[in-house]
């Protein structure tokens, strides 16, 4: 077995001296009254031994050559000093008899031990997490395993090079963390074009024009379980578009200077431009509420109701009585149990009348309501006006007339009314269109387009 392997335990063992030595400090300064000499000696002995082991392992790990030499040097010397101070402390407490400067020497030794501990810890942290890990920059909150593209799409395609605007943002988000000047895993640094091309332990990372034989492309295409896969399992992964982009870029010669405006815009590139990103999924714009109780929903399963979530994971429901033409006011009351969850409601062709509005008014989150071909009349309008979020109302073939329409138009949120074949007159529609420009009213008058 290669002895260097033990070095991999450094990050594990290193936390022992930190804990134990800090505990010793606590004992010395906070609990000094209950502190016995023997206990202090045991704790300091453990601290000294663990720091020596940690230092030894750290020394073995340093041979891997993955780290920035300057930082490593600082870390090494801080570690060695820590070892010296912790051993010295132990010897002081155990073997040196009480003398005049006892308290002063003890304070100095503890102080130096604490200082070196903090320094060694900080340098060690910088080595593993990058030198800037202890900054107040907002940390990326996203799940490490996420594969979606969180980079801002390229908006300006008229200037800038492919390397600057498309390649480096990806490297920065998903590779720099381990391949920077300080950490340089596999002796590969990616932060400048030159070091990226130079490659690392396994040779040049990119063979311009030949993606198949480029180490970087090979690595990002390996199976996620493979040890050599980059980024390794558990780290932020490249998505398909990003892999395609790297492949394309290397194939085109991996140039630093080629401009975005000069290259042929193929699908691989278009995927990164702002006007070609996937469109956002339309949203209901309703507050997030609890889903309807699944037990209550299951009661509707074998009924004539059609009740479906508007989208997967959405708490809002699309409720339709399209197969339920015999629906009465009484039966409609059953949906009161899910009323706040209903966003779209279709009651066309059913037997409901104005009294049903008591139930409908309880659907406070209703956006679309279809009442076409029912006997509802102006008596419903007062209750309908309670639906503050309603955007679309279909009162086609109902008994609502001009007065009803005028009242309905006063609803603040309403955007569309379909009133063809109701008792509403043409004149009233024209008047409402004039007075309420925010509402689109369709009464079936097809303003035929003329040449």
């Amino acid at each position, binding site marked *: 077995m290669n002895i260097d392997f033990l070095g991999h335990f450094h990050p594990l063992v290193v936390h022992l001296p930190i804990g134990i030595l800090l505990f010793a400090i606590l004992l010395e300064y906070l609990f000094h009254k209950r502190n016995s000499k023997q206990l202090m000696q045991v704790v300091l002995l453990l601290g000294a031994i663990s720091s020596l082991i940690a230092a030894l392992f750290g020394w073995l790990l340093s041979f891997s050559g993955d780290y920035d030499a300057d930082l490593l040097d600082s870390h090494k010397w801080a570690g060695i000093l820590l070892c010296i101070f912790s051993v010295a402390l132990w010897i002081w407490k155990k073997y040196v008899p009480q003398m005049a400067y006892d308290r002063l020497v003890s304070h100095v030794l503890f102080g130096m031990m604490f200082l070196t501990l903090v320094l060694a810890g900080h340098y060690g942290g910088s080595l593993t997490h990058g030198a800037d890990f202890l900054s107040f920059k907002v940390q990326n909150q996203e799940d490490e395993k996420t594969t979606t593209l969180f980079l801002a799409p390229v908006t300006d395609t008229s200037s800038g090079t492919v390397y600057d605007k498309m390649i480096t943002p990806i490297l920065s988000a998903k590779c720099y963390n381990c391949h920077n000047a300080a950490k340089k895993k596999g002796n590969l640094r990616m932060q400048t074009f030159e070091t990226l091309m130079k490659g690392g332990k396994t040779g040049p990372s990119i063979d311009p024009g030949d993606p198949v034989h480029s180490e970087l492309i090979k690595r990002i295409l390996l199976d996620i379980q493979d040890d050599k896969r980059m980024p390794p399992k558990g780290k932020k992964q490249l998505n398909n578009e990003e892999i395609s982009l790297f492949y394309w870029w290397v194939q085109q010669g991996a140039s630093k200077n080629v401009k975005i405006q000069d290259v042929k815009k193929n699908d691989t590139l278009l995927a990164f431009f702002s006007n070609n990103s996937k*469109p956002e999924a339309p949203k209901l714009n309703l507050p997030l509420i609890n889903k309807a109780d699944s037990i209550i929903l299951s009661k509707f399963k074998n009924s*004539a109701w059609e009740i479906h*979530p508007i*989208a*997967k994971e959405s708490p809002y429901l699309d409720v339709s009585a399209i197969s339920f033409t015999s629906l009465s006011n009484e039966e409609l009351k059953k949906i009161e149990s899910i009323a706040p969850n209903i966003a779209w409601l*279709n009651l066309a062709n059913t037997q409901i009348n104005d009294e049903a509005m008591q139930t409908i008014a309880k659907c406070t989150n209703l956006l679309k309501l279809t009442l076409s071909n029912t006997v509802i009349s102006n008596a419903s309008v007062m209750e309908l006006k309670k639906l503050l979020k309603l955007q679309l109302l279909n009162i086609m073939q109902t008994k609502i007339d001009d007065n009803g329409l005028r009242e309905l138009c006063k609803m603040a949120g309403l955007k569309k009314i379909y009133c063809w074949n109701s008792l509403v007159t043409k004149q009233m529609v024209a008047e409402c269109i004039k007075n309420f420009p925010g509402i689109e009213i369709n009464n079936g008058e097809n303003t035929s*387009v*003329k040449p």
Partner: protein
Amino acid sequence: MDEFEQHQYQANRRKFLLGSAIGLGGIALQGLVGCTSTPIAKKILEASGEEVLNQPLGSPHFMPTAKRVVYLFQSGGPSQMELFDYKPMLYKMHGQEIPASVMGLNRVSGMVSNQYSFPLARPACNFSQYGTNQTHLSELIPHTASIVDDLCIVKSMVTDQINHEPAMIFTQTGNQLSGRPCIGSWLSYGLGSMNQNLPAFIVMLSKGGGDQPISNAAWSSGFLPSYHQGVQFLSGKDPVLFLQTPDGVERMDRRRALDYIKQFNLLQNEKWQDPEIESQITQSEMAYKMQMAVPDILDLSKEPKHILEMYGPDVTKPGTFAHNCILARRLIEKDVRFVQLYHLGWDHHGSIFSGIRRATMQTDQASAALVKDLKQRGLLEDTLVIWGGEFGRTSFSQGKLTHEGFGRDHHPSAYTTWMAGGGVKAGMVYGETDDFAHNVVKDKMHVHDFQATLLHMLGIDHEKFIYKSQGRRYRLTDVSGKVIKNILA
């Protein structure tokens, strides 16, 4: 059917190995945590990395803007130059050879492969401007012109196929060979029916069009359960074949017979677990319900006269495009998910002058009436209407350009399709072709992009709508397709 039995039927080597691995781990875990509830079992399954495949979506991925679709398929390849894509250059250069730079290396069909001269041919009609945007449209489609403010006209459609059957199958299924599910079947499978008495996917063919036959592979469910194939409504006495109860059999008798048959089927299903048995049970039940629902749909006697007149004089003749259009509206009113119409007769290889006039007379008024009728009922809000064929036609003449007339050959690299309603932008023209309507120069919309956009409007992410069959994962858009967001309202 419990899960154990499901495995009995569907076990294979991989499942066995996976199952035993998970099984042992599961038993161990059960011992550790002392819990047998299914969520844990589910977690183990998820942790094992096996995808949940071949599960209908149930609900869309995100909020749909369209709940239903009417697809007015114009089979044969309507000429874009005679209908939507106004090219003054063609009038100017009538009779001259198509420039080599325009012709490029475009594929031509076998029908013009012996032709050495490709003279440009002026459109067989005139154009005028209509609507708020003053869109150029042919004089042959005055009714469509009257709804231009509701339309999104895509002039930059591109397909991969140059012959009718493969091109049509490509548009419908995303692949040129028959055997994959068509759009309607995908939707029926993925989202299900919204009406308990009618199937989610209904197909109607109109007569009196042309000669190109149309194969039922275009409404096949492919590898999806056969329950999702399109149900064809025919014209004539028996609109849906084998739906009527034989004379002398009462409805109650039928019910009892069905119940008994169902028991047998269930017994058989327990033993064999063949998904087709389930299909059979569901189909029988659906047929029973349809016996009541279908005559109601087909009965136009209660339609007011002015509505019938909107669709044109053919509307009362079963089997015509106009008749099918009004039936489509009645089906959409009943929340049928996908209504597919096929009209034949757009294949004008010769004498396009008369051919295109025949075709537009049969389709223009009814297509426009359907959009208007849906709109006044508020249904266009969440119903997408699509009008288009499988490819376009060439700007040059097929055969000799004579005074008597000329024809146009198939042309896959540019053609026009329009859409309306269902969350598509109204009153817009998308895409541009060159001066000869021969190549797309701006905003190409490939058939797969069209399919991806269509699914997007129905709330489906086309990249996540997958069915695994015979070891391969399939999508309607195969391995490509992009949602064209610029046409979305």
